[in-house]
């Protein structure tokens, strides 16, 4: 693969310089898709332990005895 962009699905909208005044004009479908992409896959990647529950996307460094 050349210096191409690796992007399997529509990704993270670049809103880093967006103004709060303009955000309401953001297309509803684009926003929903971006939010769903951020939140949905996390359920499958949840690595929480019983110590910390109720949160997805937490990776606890679980140490086994040495």
């Amino acid at each position, binding site marked *: 693969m050349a210096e191409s962009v690796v992007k399997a699905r529509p990704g993270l909208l*670049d809103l880093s310089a967006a103004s*709060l005044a303009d955000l309401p004009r*953001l297309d509803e479908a684009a926003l929903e898709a971006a*939010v769903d992409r951020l939140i949905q896959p996390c359920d499958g990647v949840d690595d929480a332990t019983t110590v910390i529950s109720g949160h997805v996307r937490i990776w606890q460094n679980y140490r086994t005895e040495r």
Partner: protein
Amino acid sequence: MAELQNRALKGTGSEPGFHQLTRADLIALASGKFTGSLIGRLRTAELSKNVLLLEAVRREAVRSGSDEIIAIIDSAREVLRVAQISQPGIVARLFALPHFGLWVVECLMRLKNRTEQPGAADIGHLAAFAAVAALRTRQQCHLRLPVRDGVVYLPTLGRITVPSGSGLSWADFFSDGHGATVVSGAWKMPLPAGSPSGRNWMPAYSVTARSQGLEIRLSLEDSDPFLSQLAPSPCPISPGLAQEWQQRLTETWELLTRYHRDVALGLAGTLTAIIPSSELERGQPVTATSGWAWGSVLLSLPPDKLSFAEALTHEFHHLVLAAVEDITTLIGVAHDDLCYAPWRDDPRPRSALLQGSYAFFGVAEFWLRQSHAGVCVSRQKAQAEFARRSENVADALSELRGWTGLTAAGHLFVGQMADQLAGLLAEPVDPPARAMARQVNSEHRAQWLRANGGTVAGSSTMPTAKR
């Protein structure tokens, strides 16, 4: 707004702009080669994520929230909007905070859930960010700040103890361009814009270290109402404990900047806060990272600089991969089977192996460099840790390579890690250290198989039905 963002907006007729990682970027990150530029792009992407989620919170509140919640959001957003016009960098830094990231996703998830709606005080925490922005930009405004357990918390600045007599759950914040006044019933407290003080004011603790031309500044977040909930055993910071953290960070940062330059560079560009926790059991450190509270790590006070440096290296890799996954989808399935994770006693989803593999890949490299550094630790310990963790990652990657749950980008990332790991595995290790590592790994796997009923010869994979 920049052209790139305009394209995402209605009426422009163009495709939205996205954060992107090239093949070269993914290869560099999978190889543990961090540059300031690449780390900066990950940080910017995380800012975008939080801004996106804030807009989602606003819209979800309009759809399903009460009038009170909508009013709270609107008033706080207005103050932030005005602050953004005069000093956009100040607002961007607030939005990029892990405090903000966790708040915004918690609120969004609860608003979407509909069964566990966020309370007005939870949503009202946005006003606390707005108050900080108002103080920093010297904006005249009025906000209502939630009072939780008698405390008004101002992110990154500190907390105000409201006298118990008031009994109110909200305090008024009036800023006049020179500072602010916080009012609760008959009680009021001045809050100068520069450096607040007074007996009701407790500034946020922070620790700073500088070495080899690199500086890191970390707040110790023991009282943020959202971040502190992540700690399994909260650990209030006292002046003495803050001093211990400072001392530990100073010596750790010296070690990281001297022998682990790339990691130190990355940490300086990503990490802004530590959420202190107590150990759950004596001698068993607690360390964790949340992709939502990006920029923070949860830690119990490490016993020494090597433990601290190893933990920061491990958690830094989680932060990096969390940002990569926010930009580029590496795993394309929501559910998958369970398998053996060499660092866990329980069966883990194969998808979770990627995060663990990357974190321990960083740890393996850390111990290899330590074994070459030859200071502060016996060479044999460093070599044994290196051998153990590199073998762990090799085992995990063998579960991931060829897995159909990976996207093309995921295969590229895992493949590059495997290539890089092959080089690590060829590193010479003293026979006693290698033997020690193999014995520990072998015992762990055997114990895991006994506990989890893995009976398939030559395979550690658990049947899906057992999930």
